[in-house]
């Protein structure tokens, strides 16, 4: 699967109109200068030859260098990815927890006004584009109320010492309270904005599953035994209803990575989403190929992790 993705990206980038060498040299460079640089970069070779060399280098661990910046692709990805991961994980966490909570409330109030309100609000939130919601959050919480920073992941004067690249984790690992507060305050808004897009499907699934589970005979039995409603709900119903939520959350992981591009743009976060978007615009072939390959590996790993999580949630599942 990864090889297919890599091949497709390699070919598509070279079929796209546009010339990275002209971007590097500017539109007024003489043709001979352009051709000389193209030759130096190996871009005048046939596509198959370029692909062969690329695969050969890839296998030996060399993902190439950015045509525009000159930096190693791996170096740039490992530097930028933690922020995207942090944003995605926070969004998943916030979105999933909120979705589960909201879905459960809706299920236990099925047919009542609260249920309708929750469903309506969820769809409304899901329908609004990320960039619009993001700007709205910036206006309200950032500018009007002045509660949260408008952009960025951390202020330059509060950045924690880099250990993992995950800013909040690094601030905890280095016991830096100032950095912790600063990074958390910066990441709240983008995480909430991106989290909406997992909250809604999770809430829907959770609501549906809870309604289904609450109709099961064993729930009736549990109630008949005189168990407190709290125990019925959270020990019996919830654990069975939440299993599909894990699937949904895992499936949306790749979607969140994609949504991170827009979120990173609105909130000016220097993550991989922005890196990929700008690399495509600049026709930075090695960087685009590297980013897409990385994402492909990541999504594969995430899906595997989701499958393994089932084992812990439902002991009946064995591999």
């Amino acid at each position: 699967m990864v090889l297919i993705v890599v091949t497709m990206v390699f070919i598509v980038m070279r079929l796209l109109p546009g010339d990275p060498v002209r971007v590097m040299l500017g539109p007024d460079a003489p043709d001979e200068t352009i051709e000389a640089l193209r030759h130096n970069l190996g871009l005048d070779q046939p596509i198959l030859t370029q692909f062969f060399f690329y695969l050969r280098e890839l296998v030996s661990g060399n993902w190439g260098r950015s045509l525009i910046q000159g930096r190693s692709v791996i170096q740039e990805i490992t530097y930028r990815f933690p922020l995207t991961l942090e944003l995605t994980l926070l969004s998943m966490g916030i979105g999933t927890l909120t979705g589960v909570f909201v879905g459960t409330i809706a299920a236990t109030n099925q047919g009542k006004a609260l249920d309708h309100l929750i469903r309506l609000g969820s769809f409304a939130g899901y329908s609004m584009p990320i960039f619009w919601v993001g700007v709205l959050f910036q206006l309200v919480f950032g500018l009007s109320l002045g509660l949260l920073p408008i952009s960025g992941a951390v202020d330059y004067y509060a950045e924690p010492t880099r250990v993992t690249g995950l800013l909040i984790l690094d601030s905890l690992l280095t016991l830096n309270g100032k950095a912790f507060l600063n990074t958390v305050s910066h990441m709240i808004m983008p995480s909430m904005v991106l989290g909406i897009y997992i909250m809604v499907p999770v809430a829907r699934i959770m609501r549906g599953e809870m309604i289904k589970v609450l109709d099961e005979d064993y729930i009736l039995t549990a109630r008949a035994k005189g168990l407190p409603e709290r125990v019925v709900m959270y020990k019996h119903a919830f654990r069975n209803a939440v299993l599909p939520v894990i699937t949904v959350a895992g499936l949306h992981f790749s979607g969140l990575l994609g949504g991170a591009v827009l979120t990173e743009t609105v909130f000016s976060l220097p993550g991989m989403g922005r890196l990929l978007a700008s690399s495509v615009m600049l026709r930075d072939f090695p960087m685009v190929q590297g980013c897409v390959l990385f994402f492909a590996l990541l999504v594969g790993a995430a899906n595997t992790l989701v499958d393994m999580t089932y084992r812990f949630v439902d002991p009946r599942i064995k591999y």
Partner: protein
Amino acid sequence: MKSWAKYTIVAVIVVSIIGAGFYANQLLSVSTPTQKTLVVGSTDKYTNMDPAVFWAVDSVGATPILEPLYRYALNSSDLEPCLAVSYGIIDAKTYEYVLREGVKFHDGTPFNASCVKWEIDRAKALGKGLSYAFSTILESVEVVDNYRVRFHLATAFSGFPNLLAMPSMGYIPSPSAAAKYGDDFSFKMIGTGPYKLQSWVLDREIIYVRNEEYWGKDYWPVNQQRPDKIVLKIFADSTTLKLALEKGDIDIAFRNIAHEDVPSLETNADVQEMQAQWVGYPMFIAFTLSHPYVNNKYLRKAIAYAIDYDRIVHVALGDFAKRIYSFIDPSWESYEPAWDIYSYNVTRALEYITIARQKAEQAGQWSPNETISISLWCDPSHYGPEIPNVAVIIQDNLKAIGIKAEIRVVDWDTLITMRGKSELQSHIYAWTPLYNDPYYQMFGICHQKGGGASKWKYTNATYDLIVNPTNVERTSELVDLAVKETNSTKRAEYYKEAQRLFADDAQLIIAWTRLEYLYLRKDIKGLVLGPVLTSIGYAWGATYKDGW
């Protein structure tokens, strides 16, 4: 609840309380820096600080750190000594610069003539950035002694000092740093400038810290209250940039506030507006003369008369532009308003359409009632989101004279690639001077061997339906004469005549230039906006806040 769960919860609570108590001071007091810090916001994309590699906006990011031998004064396009104290013209092809003694790079490496030769040789060898401009003009660099360097030109070029003053041509980084940092050199840039590079996180910020050993600190041009630190914060989105300015997260919004966001800034009592004076983008419609219909000069003249320039400036561009009459900047001696012969005049346009049809029919190009159809290409990603609106107005104008224009919107990379292959029948374009001398634009646009003219197929065709061949030959001849002429008045006359002849063929229809505005917090003082864009990086260092 199982006992292990209870103990776990208790342990977490206890650790949290201890941790919170231990860091109570830090948790409660999120302090901001006490140094004098100027924060500049920009949506420009900075990717490289190596002068041998960059050619565009990156040079602004490098300006606080790097310096040329002569630089542009803050508020004029006059050259002033910088790393050199004087220069002399040995002969038409030889310039000698006397370097400033006692200057050191930020890493302690002494600056001398060898550094100059090293950098220029390196740039030529790399073959990136604007090295091609050097390669065609500069033959070699000679180290005469430790503080004298001689430039031997391949051809006489009276604008050489201006060429050498531009960042891509003349910035001198530290050779020791290049050797030490290798491929990371661009991101660890070391120069001689008033500020040092403290850190650079791509797509986030560049931080400069004051160079306390700066050679020029005793005669810093404006005042001594300059920032200890400058933070160039990168925004991905102009709306976020504007919000950050309103909130006070940044002091200056350098580029680019969207036009629709300007009214709210103008009513904000905490924000002031400054109009940029730098030489801007002369925008025009260009025709590639190997394509049908546009290879008829009478048709091109008809188009030139059909365009409602005022509507473009006022409606499409919201008055963030002004009409211009040449691609040469009006502040330059060689400026000639040659395109003022083309004003919006539908009657005249229709007359030229009639002539165009007659001539085309005689030449067997078009049939009598054939619909004239052209494609108009434009790129909003580089020139601004308003550009398609400009194209719509042009399309509407051309419809009124019976020309069907199809608008094609592409991204920058596609536009320049297709232009490079002469695939664009007509397109909206700009040609900004990369150094403050008319030669760059005159040669590129008008000369038969120029990059622009060759791609637009402005050749000495004998077929005078395309262009006036006399114009083509004479224009090239004038540019060749001007480049060698050391008398500035005579040189200007050559360029002016070339512009008049070139305008007559209407291969380009010069239309407008953008007006750029900067927005800053009301308490920011001292910012000087000169005619050279890259000087802004130097100007930040002379800016201060009330109360500093």
